[in-house]
């Protein structure tokens, strides 16, 4: 049986984990969407920016968290460093899907919009973003589910979250502790995935 004190800690660390993911995703989407839109307008920036996001993705997460510790301002021990690393990981799928979604809008539809006298802003908000929304949302969905998993490593640098259980469980060879971290993390991932799929169905425009 699970002792009552563990329930309380599960609730607290799940909450921490959730906030960690939420803040990271808000920043990643807040930066990734405008950057992705910028990439559709400036082809010359695509290679360097996507290249950077790609490289970030290839660095093993534990190593990236470790690298960040000695860096001033963004680094150190704690949540801020963890969030910075999680944002770097989440950026690639959001960037790539925003770019692919907007570039994937039918050429004839975009040309009609321009030929009918839409301004650049109207083209973006009334045509490109609504039509690219499913692809963009899919990118945010992938990034969120991945981030929920990766965020367990935040505990290694004092970022808190469900990883605290996992690292403690490994250190003390206590599988109850490991499961106390792993199961809520998996549930969180499943729930958010389901949530996104509901949003996709609810707001599908085409």
């Amino acid at each position, binding site marked *: 049986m699970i002792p009552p004190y563990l329930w309380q800690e599960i609730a607290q660390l799940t909450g921490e984990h959730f906030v960690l993911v939420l803040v990271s995703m808000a920043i990643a989407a807040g930066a990734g969407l405008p950057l992705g839109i910028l990439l559709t307008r400036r082809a010359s920036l695509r290679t360097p920016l996507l290249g950077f996001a790609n490289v970030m993705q290839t660095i093993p997460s534990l190593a990236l968290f470790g690298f960040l510790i000695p860096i001033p301002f963004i680094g150190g021990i704690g949540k801020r460093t963890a969030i910075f690393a999680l944002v770097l990981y989440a950026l690639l799928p959001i960037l790539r899907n925003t770019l692919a979604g907007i570039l994937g809008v*039918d*050429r*004839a*539809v975009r*040309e*009609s*919009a*321009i*030929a*009918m*006298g*839409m*301004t650049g802003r*109207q083209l973006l908000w009334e*045509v490109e973003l*609504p*039509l690219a929304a499913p692809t963009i949302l899919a990118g945010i969905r992938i990034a969120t589910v991945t981030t929920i998993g990766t965020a367990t490593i935040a505990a290694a640098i004092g970022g808190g979250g469900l990883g605290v259980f996992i690292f403690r469980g490994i250190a003390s060879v206590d599988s109850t502790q490991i499961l106390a971290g792993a199961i809520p993390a998996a549930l969180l991932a499943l729930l958010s995935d389901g949530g996104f799929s509901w949003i996709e169905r609810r707001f599908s*425009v*085409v």
Partner: protein
Amino acid sequence: MAFRGKSLDRGLNAQPALEFRGVSYRINGSIILENLSFCIDPGRTLVLLGRSGSGKTTALKMVNGLLFPSSGQVLVESRATSDWDLIQLRRSIGYVIQEVGLFPHFTIGENVGLVPRLNGWTPHRITARVAELLHQVGLDPVRFLNRYPRELSGGQRQRVGVARALAAEPKLLLFDEPFGALDPVTRVELQDQFLELRDRLQITSIFVTHDVREALRLCSEIALLHRGKLEILAKPADFMDCQGPEARAFLSTL
């Protein structure tokens, strides 16, 4: 300046609705259009006829500023497209393309009412206008207003495309092979509709096609383009007698 002033039946003081003045277009070292000059008088229909790659679509896109000449000028109401406010220019020119390009996430009503909405018409006026237009192109407003483009056949979609182009009472209409993807029966129906609308509304039009039959049916004048050059500018009856090799090649398809 090969064809300068060659527009036919010009009234002495009439100002052309549209003029190409020594227009050339080059991209990556290849010449798409070379020294193209012609005028269209108000209310007339010029058909740009030519093979694929002859430059006719390029010429069309210069009228509403989707492209600009490398040299020369395109003048709409005697004003170069480079001097127009592009947004205003485009909103006053109807544009119909083969792929139709309806907005898949807009209803038929929203598609047709787009340019009036961009121009700030009142919702009441837009609704009335949209119903009138759908009626004009032979679609029942009650049945079609709230449907989406994917629910329509190719012919119905192109009717909506024509209605959308007419919506804001444009001063010019551009057609880029609009009926090319339709079956022969629907094509003729839409051509008839085009003729009927044109005669009633008297809007200056440019119509791009590679089908000489369609060209002869719809035009006031035919401009034959070959490798970016204007080969012939003639009325349909005179075009039938043209002896140039490209004109013969097209006429032999009749």
